[in-house]
């Protein structure tokens, strides 16, 4: 393949895989059963020049490959507020990846699609939240692949035998122990999990950590929130939640019977500080602060999350002037449409966005007022990307705030008097 027998595009892809193997110190390549590619998001003309080289060189993916979000919502082009030219460049890039044989899934949460890898499968995934979910929650194995490497591995059908593809690298070297002062009500609330993820990313950096002391059998949506936030505040590619993730039925299993290098207690004060840091509005956005935008669904909302939003709305609309937007995958929107859920949400004034994210694409109504989100990742990146001030809260607080048109918070469970 390197010599060009499979075409110039495949040879280029193989050169990048070999470079990756050198950087990772791998001695050989191993086959993969699937890939998830993030390179379809436009970051300037270099991203188009790159894929043109592959397409013009006759490359095709060798394994089933899903696509991450692109720069715009292809199904709802009316939501676009940017220039026609930038929409055209984003659309062109997304089309080019289809030409390589990738599935047009356009979601950052490919693990919510019906076909997903299983425990022990070797894959090549990009997109930081997807990588951490793949390793941690599915127990499938991927290194932290990025743009260009992802599609190169998909075309080669192989990855370097290194890092998290190997059992020993999946061992927890760090334990985060939930301290006794964290109230049971908080452990049982969705609001905790993105905040815990922010703390995990800061403490762990790129190390594999085990979370000990959480309720067992945590939902995939809660584990998704932990991972997405941890991959934003740190470079976390895998974590274990004892009693919830497949390689951590016990703490000893997560440690692969070894000793941790470090054990860190995470208490209520630290969690509260991490939660407060996610809010960028001066003064910490006390209850009553007026809002312009509420953005949910980062990573893309699951059907269960969309149903929970509907339940929380309980027939109420967002206040006049407040935009309530939920991002999800086009495949899940199709299911929500068949089920009537999408129509019911739209009738209540909820905007549904697919194929992209509201901190990437220019879709939100310009507003001088802050935006509220339940996503640690959105709170982390939106101020830099789209220049909004952010208020962080749980999904329940976000929906109630959208209805009230101002911040509604439940501070009691965070130990705030």
């Amino acid at each position, binding site marked *: 393949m390197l010599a060009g027998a499979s075409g110039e595009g495949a040879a*280029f892809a193989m*050169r*990048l895989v070999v*470079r*990756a193997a*050198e*950087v*990772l110190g791998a001695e050989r390549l191993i086959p993969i059963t699937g890939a998830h590619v*993030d*390179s379809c*998001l436009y*970051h*300037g*003309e*270099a*991203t188009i*020049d*790159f894929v043109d*080289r592959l397409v013009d060189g006759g490359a095709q993916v060798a394994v089933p490959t899903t696509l991450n979000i692109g720069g715009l919502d292809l199904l709802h082009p009316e939501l676009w507020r940017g220039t026609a030219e930038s929409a055209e460049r984003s659309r062109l890039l997304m089309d080019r990846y289809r030409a390589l044989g990738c599935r047009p899934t356009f979601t950052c949460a490919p693990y919510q699609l019906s076909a997903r890898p299983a425990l022990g499968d070797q894959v090549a995934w*990009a*997109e*930081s939240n997807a*990588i951490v979910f793949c390793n941690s929650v599915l127990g499938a194995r991927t*290194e*932290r*692949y*990025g*743009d*260009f*490497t*992802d599609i*190169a591995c998909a075309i080669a059908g192989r990855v370097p035998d290194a890092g998290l593809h190997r059992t020993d690298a999946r061992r927890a070297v760090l334990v985060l122990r939930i301290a006794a002062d964290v109230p049971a009500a908080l452990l049982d609330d969705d609001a905790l999990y993105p905040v815990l993820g922010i703390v995990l990313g800061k403490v762990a*950096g*790129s190390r594999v950590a085990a979370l000990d002391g959480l309720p067992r059998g945590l939902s995939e949506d809660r584990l998704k929130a932990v991972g997405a936030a941890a*991959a*934003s505040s*740190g*470079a976390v590619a895998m974590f274990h939640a004892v009693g919830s993730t497949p390689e951590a039925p016990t703490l000893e299993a997560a440690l692969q019977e070894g000793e941790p290098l470090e054990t860190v207690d995470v208490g209520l004060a630290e969690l509260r500080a991490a939660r407060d840091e996610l809010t*960028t509005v001066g003064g910490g956005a006390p209850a009553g602060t007026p809002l312009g935008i509420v953005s949910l669904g980062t990573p893309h909302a699951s059907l269960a999350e969309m149903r929970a939003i509907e339940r929380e709305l309980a027939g109420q609309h967002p206040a006049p002037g407040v935009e309530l937007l939920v991002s999800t995958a086009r495949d899940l929107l199709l299911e929500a449409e068949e089920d009537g859920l999408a129509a019911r949400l739209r009738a209540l004034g909820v905007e549904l966005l697919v194929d992209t994210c509201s901190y990437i694409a220019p879709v939100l109504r310009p507003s001088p007022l802050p935006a509220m989100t339940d996503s640690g990742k959105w709170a982390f*990146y939106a*101020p*830099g*990307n789209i220049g909004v001030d952010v208020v962080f809260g749980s999904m329940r607080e976000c929906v109630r705030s959208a209805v009230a048109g101002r911040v509604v918070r439940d501070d009691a469970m965070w130990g705030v008097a």
Partner: protein
Amino acid sequence: MGCRVKGRALSGGSATGTALVLDEPLSLWGGLDPATGRIIDARHPQRGSTVTGRILVMAGVRGSSSSSSVLAESARAGTAPAAILLGEPDLILAVGAAVAEELYGVRVPLVLLSRGDVLAIPDDAAVTIAEDGVVSVG
């Protein structure tokens, strides 16, 4: 008073420039504007600094898997750093540099040093990087 250390070249090339030592890890995606070469991460202490032509010194790496694209785009736009010195290996930046070289013939040397060697480089120091990964400081 200079010193020479041997690193591992994750992406080849030689370069000379002044060091821009990052106080905290930076994700190029969301952190660097490839059109201008400026650091735009609102939470980064060096927000507003320009990386173009500098020897970017990063003890740790952070964040997004899209940083490869941002590095290649900054090479295309002529705003890339002259070289990057790393304290830990980073596949995402190494592949971004490989693509920049394949597409545009622009080399952004990427050299892995020990964390201690990286931390010893002062901001604004004159740095020379040789093809074999030897880094001379001061």
